[in-house]
């Protein structure tokens, strides 16, 4: 069992928890993830490790409620526990001093971007961070990202904070003002990662994305998470989750993410019926 030591609601349907997991904390590196199965009947879902504290033996998970599993996780209180967590899984990010890096995040993907950004800053990079969301309250972890960035740009679709527009507008603006960017990470909703990757290619910047396909074991055993990168089948759980965004087959990736939409709805509706009010999410 993995006890929840702290829990915060950081945006509508988005939660930030620290969990007791000493072995995972002592081996985790930026870019890695865990597979969580919250209870006996639960699904195994992948979540990026948003941060870790080796001394306290804790890992930080930030998740958005998108279905039953994440809703049951959101319903847990401090002191309660997640039944199973396995990790740290996947290949860590390649972090070194590249020069200037452009870190692009959206939605709950910002949680995956954060540990990489922090490490890049520690390794001496000039870090320019762009965080985007539909509205201001959906852009999470602004202060923490600002703390580890040389510059933080916020974009919102409705202009409620920062620049009105989407992250790719900000990416272009950064390059247009004369920044020479050596590397870019773009992590967020798949549609954002697709367009951010296209923009990076146009701007001549190597781009890394972190893919979050459906997974079961997370150790290369089932092949459920397969993605096509550079015309080759790769398993996101062991070969990734980071890949060259310019080479990912985005149409196929997004199609596979939708595979169980009907069943996910059945499961969520059944849960909603059982627990009643879910407006607190």
């Amino acid at each position, binding site marked *: 069992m993995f006890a929840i030591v702290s829990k915060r609601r950081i945006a509508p349907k988005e939660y930030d928890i620290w969990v007791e997991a000493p072995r995972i904390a002592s081996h985790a590196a930026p870019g890695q993830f865990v597979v969580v199965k919250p209870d006996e009947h639960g*699904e195994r879902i992948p979540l990026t490790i948003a941060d870790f504290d080796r001394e306290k033996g804790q890992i930080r998970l930030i998740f958005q409620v998108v279905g039953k599993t994440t809703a049951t996780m959101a319903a847990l209180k401090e002191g309660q526990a997640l039944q199973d967590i*396995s990790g740290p899984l996947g290949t860590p990010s390649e972090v070194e001093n590249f020069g200037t890096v452009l870190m692009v995040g959206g939605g709950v993907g910002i949680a995956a971007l954060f540990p990489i950004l922090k490490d890049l800053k520690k390794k001496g990079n000039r870090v320019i961070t762009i965080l985007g969301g539909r509205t201001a309250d959906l852009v999470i972890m602004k202060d923490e990202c600002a703390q580890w960035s040389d510059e933080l740009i916020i974009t919102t679709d409705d202009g409620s904070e920062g620049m009105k527009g989407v992250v790719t507008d900000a990416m272009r603006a950064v390059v247009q003002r004369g920044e020479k960017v050596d590397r870019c990470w773009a992590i967020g909703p798949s549609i954002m990662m697709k367009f951010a990757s296209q923009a990076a290619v146009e701007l001549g910047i190597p781009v890394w994305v972190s893919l979050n396909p459906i997974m079961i074991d997370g150790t290369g055993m*089932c*092949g459920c998470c397969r993605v096509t990168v550079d015309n080759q*089948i790769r398993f996101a759980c062991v070969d990734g989750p980071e890949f060259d965004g310019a080479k990912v087959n985005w149409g196929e990736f997004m*199609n596979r993410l939708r595979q169980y939409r009907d069943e996910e709805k*059945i*499961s969520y509706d059944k849960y909603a019926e059982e627990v009643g009010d879910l407006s607190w999410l």
Partner: protein
Amino acid sequence: MAPKQKTPIAEQDPKERCHNFKEVCLGYTLEEGIAEAKRCLQCKTAPCVKGCPVSIDIPGFIKAVAEGDMPKAAEIMGQYTNLPAVCGRVCPQESQCEGVCTLGKVPGFEPVAIGKLERLVADWKYEHTSDAKPQLPGEKKGRVAVIGSGPAGLTVAGDLAKKGYEVVIYEALHAAGGVLMYGIPEFRLPKSIVQKEIQAMKDLGVQVETNVVVGKTLTMQEILAQFDAAYIAVGAGTPHFQGVPGTTLNGVYSASEYLTRINLMHAYEFPGYDTPTKRSKRVVVVGGGNVAMDAARSAKRLGAEEVQVVYRRSLKELPARIEEYHHAVEEGIVFNWLTNPVEYMNDGNGQLCGVKCIRMELGEPDASGRRRPVAVEGSEFVIEADTAIEAIGQGSNKVLLSTFPELNLNKWGYIVADEKTGATSVPGVYAGGDIVTGAATVILAMGAGKDAAVAMDEYITKKRASA
């Protein structure tokens, strides 16, 4: 003289069982078991023992059954195997003990139903044992880590615990049992049986730690610093895909994924359990092994109207157990011999709508000694399908191996280990099961585990004596 035929055994009616996941074979009653045990000739040569990878005293336990002495039968069997209820169900007896049975060599006679008797004794034991914990040696002879809780790992763990070692099993998944939990379906091997065998292991003092992915959660270096020896039995767990166009379409699965969803994650009980699988209408399973049979029969049980197996060779070469093939036929699975998929067809929305296949014919024998299938040009045809499941084998999983480069691997990526002892290129590190042999059977993995336990005991005893 003994009856010519095996004592009949009750099975669920095919028409009924193809709609549920309950066990197909219902097992012998005590009376039936005694009758069957009496068929054994108690021959002096006992070829059956040599045919058994863990050398169970088969005539011995069968004699006890014939005399109605079940405690004695269970005791004899327990000296040789830690997983009798599993082996009685999934061992390929027809090519092992029963394949060489003296009675079976008599023209017109069937061999003794050794597997079914093993199952009877094991099930009897679990129904009749008291809660009293077995007596264990007090002083521990050393500490051993076992990586992976499948058949090989469980065997090593059980044997070394009995010899007086402190044993910790590290399992990557959330449930112990390895392939017995995620791979073999409930209708062939009920998960409650697997858990009983694992509980028996825990009663011997074996500790099982789940959610530990060795190489990630804990490194081999850390393990070796804490234990006298380690046994690597992580299985051959990376699915192969044929790589034909359309492999990443929705509706195309590896058998590993399909069966893991159903067995480990209980997708057949969705939405009571949260993990779903698709309620397919028309299913194509590619391959001819036991895993292919399991996938096909599971699809049928989930309500598929039509399930077709596509196999590139013919019935004669089918690697699946003949009993599983017969069960599949009884349940209405259709077999396409000498057929191979060449393309998974897209319905235009990224969903599979058909499997384009080509007819094969058998040419010259290949390296495996089997005649190699060759495509017949221009023979393509399409099987309409919303689901395709590839059950064409697995490769070695690199998660642990890539973090432990000291270990010598062969050209296929499996661990090089001594055939007799399981010793690897690293002193104190032993290995066995599918990660050494490539995908094989439960009992072969157990046989490897049994030999390794002996070797590891010798190694640690010597090491401690010289320290």
